[in-house]
């Protein structure tokens, strides 16, 4: 029985990821806009830091920030908002009527979303290295990839928690996502060292996985850069903890919101 449930989970995950990966590839203009958007945001900070003469280290952290930023945007708009959008499209009730758990849909969305976002993230990285001649130290490249994957896990776990909350909030979800986006960009230190926030604010910011993931990646790939938050090993341990916590809370929140949907009849209907 466990094997059958696991198969159902995997098939649901694959099918939902397929929509993200292959379906959205059909929107060529979206891909071009997404890549160019990433490039120009990064370029703005590049020229800013170069104009005030901060040195090559700063340009390195900007490229890594530009690499990670679209993933959080995807977590927020592509995972957290998704159940709400599925409700609006009339898909949520079909997802609930099927035997697949809601978590399988959201993990599928996360996997598909991460793969899709990787295109923009890699484009930023390639532009950074080729256009702006940014140099990274690749001695710890394998560890950096692992740190990146753990960060993604924790981020998308947080996205699943948000998806339940946003579904519960209904029409306010859009505004809530908008409200979250920019403060998280600041707290994550996407385009500056998060240490400059001060330890008080930074200790709050570590609840957002991007903060620690980005700081750890910067330590591993731009080791000459000084103002770090914590040692990267400590940061990875905290990230693993966050990944587990957000995943467990996410699954619990989905079950809770589904029960509420069935009890109150206010979450699966488009007009509510």
């Amino acid at each position, binding site marked *: 029985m466990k094997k*059958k449930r696991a*198969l*159902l989970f995997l*098939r*649901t995950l*694959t*099918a*939902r990821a*397929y*929509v993200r990966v*292959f*379906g*959205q590839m*059909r*929107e060529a203009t979206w891909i071009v806009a997404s890549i160019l958007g990433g490039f120009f945001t990064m370029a703005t900070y590049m020229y800013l830091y170069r104009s005030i003469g901060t040195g090559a280290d700063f340009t390195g952290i900007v490229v890594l920030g530009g690499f990670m930023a679209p993933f959080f945007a995807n977590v927020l708009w592509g995972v957290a908002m998704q159940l709400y959008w599925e409700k609006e*499209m*009339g*898909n949520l*009730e*079909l*997802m*609930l*009527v*099927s*035997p*697949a758990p809601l978590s399988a849909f959201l993990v599928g969305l996360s996997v598909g979303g991460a793969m899709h976002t990787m295109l923009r993230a890699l484009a930023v990285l390639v532009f950074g290295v080729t256009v702006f001649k940014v140099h990274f130290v690749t001695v710890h490249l394998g560890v950096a990839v692992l740190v990146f994957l753990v960060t993604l896990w924790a981020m998308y776990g947080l996205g699943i928690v948000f998806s339940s909350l946003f579904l519960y909030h209904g029409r306010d979800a859009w505004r809530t996502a908008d409200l979250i986006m920019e403060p998280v960009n600041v707290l994550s230190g996407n385009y500056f060292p998060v240490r400059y926030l001060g330890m008080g604010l930074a200790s709050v910011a570590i609840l957002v996985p991007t903060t620690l993931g980005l700081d750890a990646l910067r330590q591993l790939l731009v080791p000459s850069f000084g103002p770090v938050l914590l040692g990267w090993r400590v940061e990875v341990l905290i990230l693993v903890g966050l990944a587990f916590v957000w995943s467990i809370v996410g699954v619990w929140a989905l079950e809770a919101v589904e029960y509420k*949907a*069935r*009890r109150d*009849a206010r979450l*699966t209907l488009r007009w509510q």
Partner: protein
Amino acid sequence: MAGLQSLRATEVVCMDNAITVDQVTRVFTRRGSEPFHALRGVSFEVPYGEIFGLLGPNGAGKTTTIRILATLLLPTSGRATVAGLDVEREFAAVRRLISLVSGGETSGYGILTVEEQLWMFSQFYGMQTREARQKIEAYLKLVGMWDSRRLQMNRLSTGMRQKVNLVRGLVTNPRVLFLDEPTLGVDVEASVVIRHIVRDWVAAEPDRCVILTTHYMAEADELCSRVAIVNHGLVLANAAPSQLKQGLDAKAHYEITLDRLDKTRVQQLAARTGPGSDLTLTTDKVTNKPMLIAHLQHEGDIGALIAALSAEGSTLEYMRKLEPSLEDAFLKLVGRTFEDEEEASSAVS
């Protein structure tokens, strides 16, 4: 699919009834407004092999009943089962056995092709891809959409989309298929195809059942072996459409077009036809010829009426027996026509 079938074998308790609904109520509460009693103690049973219709105006409680049975809503009180499984406590097992198709549904993703969309939904039921593709091909051919399989969903007409929705509901081989207004807004050709397929599908296997909600009385009359007339959260009647219509009155009703008839002779004709006969003379709107509307106490009285007309020198040009409709049954049970009831409900809400 093999996995799904074995799940059925091990988990499904064999019961005579596909559906049982026992004194189910559902109350919707909203802050600042009075509680709304959508269902007020609804009870019915549906055996396998049946297409069971829930008939009623908007807000009658049809969709609420379906949503409870499809595990999307909890009943406020009472108990409902699907294939012997409690929809409240055993909802995960129920979901393996059911499928839901709603009218006007825009589900799925416009960016996917028809066959991608159907494959995606089949995966949500754990089907193996090869079996899913075989079934998708078979059903798309059945609805005449195999050639459109590579069209993106956002390019389909309403009728085509609804055919795809029906295929989605059938591909996973449910035991109980819920159809909530499946032909709403759909053109005549697509409606005929949908009705035809639903009838064949339920007849193909003995352990299948369809629960249909519809506005269209003719659709319920054509498809359903039994119909529950629902209004204001109550089941007012539950019987075969023919029984519901027969129960209206024992009189026989006819429409007779004649070449000529003197209107002063109508009363005498009624007296010669038989006791309790009621005749009204009007004009056929198409031919402009005299038309007699006859309400006869007994069906056999028609012979006496034809003989009397013949004696009057009238030639019978056209005759039609007027069968009572489900609309008449609704009128008798509710006291208002379907449309009037809907208008009254929307005025109240």
